[in-house]
């Protein structure tokens, strides 16, 4: 039967179920299909710290949210329009993120005695009227899946595992997406197990058919493609983009990439991704701990590689001492910190921005290190590349801050034309004539990079204070003062070689919202909403956190107020105050979750009312 079709600008869907229900996979399939049809989008996976928490438990709920539209999409969505809940726990945990009047697709088969109890429901919410303010659709997904596979005589384990494809099928129907991309994917993914392939395909189609045929869905929706700038796109997560950005830097600097790393959530996927690209001569060394991770990378840099180490908060802390060594040695090194909820072990799978001050100050004595941060999943590519460029140009360790939200979040990425990426010009010192290990380049103050294997340049470096030019150990008082200041000066000079900061929106006005890192999308959305309402508000997003761009004071001087939203207790705010004596208003949230743009909108209203 024909159903009427409604057009929507943007939609947010949340798939939620047990860790075992394959919600991440379902979400990712919906994502690539949605990208494929040309919507702009943003996603947020949200899974428990436990690997496979026992079925039905609240803490075992795994969720995946996707926000897509014809319009520009910058966040995974504050609240969702559709919630797919495979069991009571999934409903309980996620209901509050569903907007009033939103749609619930619940797998009624999942709402049995046991699961209801585990989720702490006295009564079955599908049967009482507790969900009245929502459009509830109870579907016996498990049963329908089994029916679809009845004649295949598969184990219930297998049939059960494919029920998520039924849900996916329904969503494809409801939002008028093609099934072909997923069919293709299933074909490849399960090539080795034909019966599973067959099962998943059938169930997916059954899900679509169900939407088509049953009465319960009155309408289906259409979300027209977004007007994205033309070109070839892919969907990419922050961790993928980071890994590829490093590979790009290795290609463009013609240096071998050496990663010394120790696994840690949410950074491990960078190690995983890089280890898959050995044909780029990438060497990944899974070290015994974070200290060996960074020190092995320093050793590799000393040998002429692009040395990189990746980690998250606790690992960052462990690398502190070795970072100081890299500062003293003045060797290139990129330290990537994918921030997570803390302190200590904290909330390993949640996101946070609270390592900023550690990145800037977390070392003994005066050991300045440049710090830059990515602002969206895809931007991790450019940021990883830029971090490498700075490290190689200035012979310095560089800290690249990502976070759990960027790392696992995905968005469409207009794939750059590789030839458009700048070369990173590196030259190793080879001429013994007039060679001194700490004789600096006049412009960058970088010292020469003389790698072992070069005849006549035999020299010795280390962590003790060095004599200017010769690099010999020196306990001389004036020399120490000189070296401390010139190391600082070298980092400050990086500001000469980076683009000026630019404001989104009017370059002067009432309020400037200053952000950094992964809050970009939420702030951008909020500021645009408010500007459309006629408010005098602009947005400045900082990628360079040390050193700051030179034109910041000029920018600040053109706004009456400055609001700094951060997922910490106000760390950037502190830096701006101490650096510019800038009276900032700090908006802080520290819940292991990204900002909802409405939270920023409210803060803007407070300041402009």
């Amino acid at each position, binding site marked *: 039967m024909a159903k009427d079709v409604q057009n929507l600008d943007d939609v947010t869907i949340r798939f939620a179920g047990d860790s075992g229900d394959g919600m991440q996979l379902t979400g990712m399939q919906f994502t690539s299909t949605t990208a494929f049809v040309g919507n702009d989008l943003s996603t947020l996976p949200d899974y428990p710290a436990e690997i496979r928490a026992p079925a039905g438990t609240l803490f075992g709920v795994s969720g995946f949210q996707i926000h897509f539209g014809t319009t520009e999409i910058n966040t995974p969505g504050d609240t969702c329009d559709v919630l797919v809940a495979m069991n009571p726990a999934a409903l309980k945990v996620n209901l509050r993120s569903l907007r009033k009047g939103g749609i619930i697709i619940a797998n009624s088969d999942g709402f049995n005695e046991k699961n209801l109890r585990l989720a702490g429901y006295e009564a079955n919410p599908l049967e009482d009227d507790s969900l009245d303010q929502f459009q509830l659709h109870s579907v016996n997904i498990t049963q329908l899946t089994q029916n679809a596979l009845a004649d295949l005589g598969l184990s219930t384990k297998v049939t059960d595992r494919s029920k998520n494809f039924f849900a996916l099928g329904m969503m494809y129907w409801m939002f008028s997406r093609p099934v072909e991309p997923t069919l293709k994917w299933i074909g490849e993914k399960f090539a080795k197990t034909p019966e599973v392939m067959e099962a998943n395909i059938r169930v997916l189609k059954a899900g679509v058919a169900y939407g088509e045929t049953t009465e319960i869905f009155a309408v289906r929706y259409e979300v027209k493609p977004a007007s994205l700038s033309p070109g070839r796109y*892919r969907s990419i997560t922050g961790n993928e983009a980071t890994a590829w950005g490093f590979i790009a830097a290795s290609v463009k600097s013609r240096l*071998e990439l050496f990663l010394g790393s120790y696994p840690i959530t949410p950074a491990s996927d960078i190690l995983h991704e890089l280890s898959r690209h050995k*044909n780029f001569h990438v060497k990944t060394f899974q070290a015994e701990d974070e200290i060996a991770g960074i*020190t092995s990378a320093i050793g590799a840099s000393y040998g002429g590689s692009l040395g990189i180490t990746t980690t998250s908060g606790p690992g960052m802390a462990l690398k502190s001492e070795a970072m100081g060594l890299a500062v003293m040695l003045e060797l290139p090194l990129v330290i990537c910190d994918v921030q997570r909820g803390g302190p200590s072990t904290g909330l390993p799978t949640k996101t946070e921005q609270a390592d900023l001050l550690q990145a800037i100050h977390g070392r003994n004595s005066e050991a300045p290190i440049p710090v830059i941060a990515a602002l969206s999943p895809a931007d991790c590519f450019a940021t990883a590349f830029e971090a490498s460029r700075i490290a190689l140009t200035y012979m310095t360790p560089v800290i690249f801050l990502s976070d759990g939200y960027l790392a696992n979040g995905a968005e469409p990425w207009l794939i750059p034309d590789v030839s458009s990426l700048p070369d990173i010009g590196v030259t*190793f010192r080879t001429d013994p004539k007039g060679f001194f290990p700490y004789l600096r380049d006049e412009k960058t103050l970088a010292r020469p990079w003389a790698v072992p294997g070069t005849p006549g340049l035999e020299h010795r*470096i280390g962590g003790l204070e060095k004599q200017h030019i010769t690099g010999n150990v020196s306990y001389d008082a004036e020399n120490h003062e000189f070296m401390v200041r010139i190391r600082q000066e070298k980092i400050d000079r990086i500001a000469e070689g980076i683009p000026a900061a630019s404001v989104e929106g009017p370059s002067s006005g009432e309020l400037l919202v200053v952000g950094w890192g992964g809050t970009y999308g939420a702030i951008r959305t909020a500021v645009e909403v408010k500007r459309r309402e006629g408010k005098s508000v602009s947005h400045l997003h900082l990628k360079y956190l040390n050193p700051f761009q030179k034109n910041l004071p000029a920018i600040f001087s053109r706004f009456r107020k400055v609001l700094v939203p951060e997922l910490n207790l106000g760390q950037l705010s502190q830096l701006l105050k101490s650096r510019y004596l800038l009276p900032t208003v700090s908006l802080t949230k520290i819940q292991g979750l990204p900002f909802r743009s409405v939270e920023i909108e409210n803060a803007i209203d407070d300041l402009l009312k």
Partner: protein
Amino acid sequence: MNLATETLQHLPPAPEVKYTAKDFQSDQDVRWCPGCGDYSILAQVQRVMPELGIPKHKLVFVSGIGCSSRFPYYMDAYGFHGIHGRATAIASGLKIARPDLTVWVATGDGDGLSIGGNHLIHLCRRNIDIKILLFNNQIYGLTKGQYSPTSEFGKVTKSTPAGSVDHPFNPLLLTLGAEATFVARTLDRDPKHMQNVIRRAAAHKGTAFVEIYQNCNVFNDGAFFQFTEKETKDDSVLFLEHGKPMIFGKEKNRGIRLDGFTPTVVSLAEGKYSASDLLVHNENDTMLSFILARMSNIPSLPRPVGVVYATERPLYEVEVERQISRAVQKQGEGELQKLLYHGETWTIK
């Protein structure tokens, strides 16, 4: 081809020089205490290096922190004075990145076995081709005399005025337990022996661990005199030679015999036992290596010195290179644009 390789290849070939020990002396003044055993180690290394035929620009000495770790400053080669305990980790990264280099580590009983113990045992199991010289003076020298993980039980030091209460590591046993492929011991005051052991370590393919008994004449003077001084040496040290029966003593009239698994000292004088009854050293025998290593824990037995164990195992860095070339063969040299385009992409007109 990457920049490092290319740069180095395009350099005019370094002139074939015949080195002497002097060529390995750096321009830095040596800053150890007068009389320190470290001087001898430096001298022996400088003496052996010329024989190895390694151009000195291919040679790197990496160290941590400690008196012993000052070593790289005094060698005219590439030198890396790291941070405390991390020399083996730094060297691992360097050697994996640059298998063409010859990498040595100089470390101490504190640097290598206290703070650096974990990196050391992991290096041993990985079998990266790195040579480790562990200067064991059974004390923390640079920090002015605290006990170390190799100090004997009951050791009175600045930090243990009532005597230490920990059982020390036996460095040979520890590295054998970590499955090192080469384990040896030598003495600061036996230049010839040390030179031989250094030669053997240099020749070994894989991680080579060498414990050197080194006298700290300021904070632990005489710790090893029983094994190094004329009066007692012959009767206290068992010099190991591959394939030879284990004989020792001033008159070469005593030997080591196994009773069960327990090594015992027998006399060759009474005619009851002859050389043929003795344990014969076999560097390649894993179990024997444990027996020999453990002898150091038994005061009544002579202290084994020399190459205790030597075997072959795949080299970590070689396997890494192999995986890379396999990948290149299978997928071809990586192309960035291809990488970015691979998998699911779509085009917006």
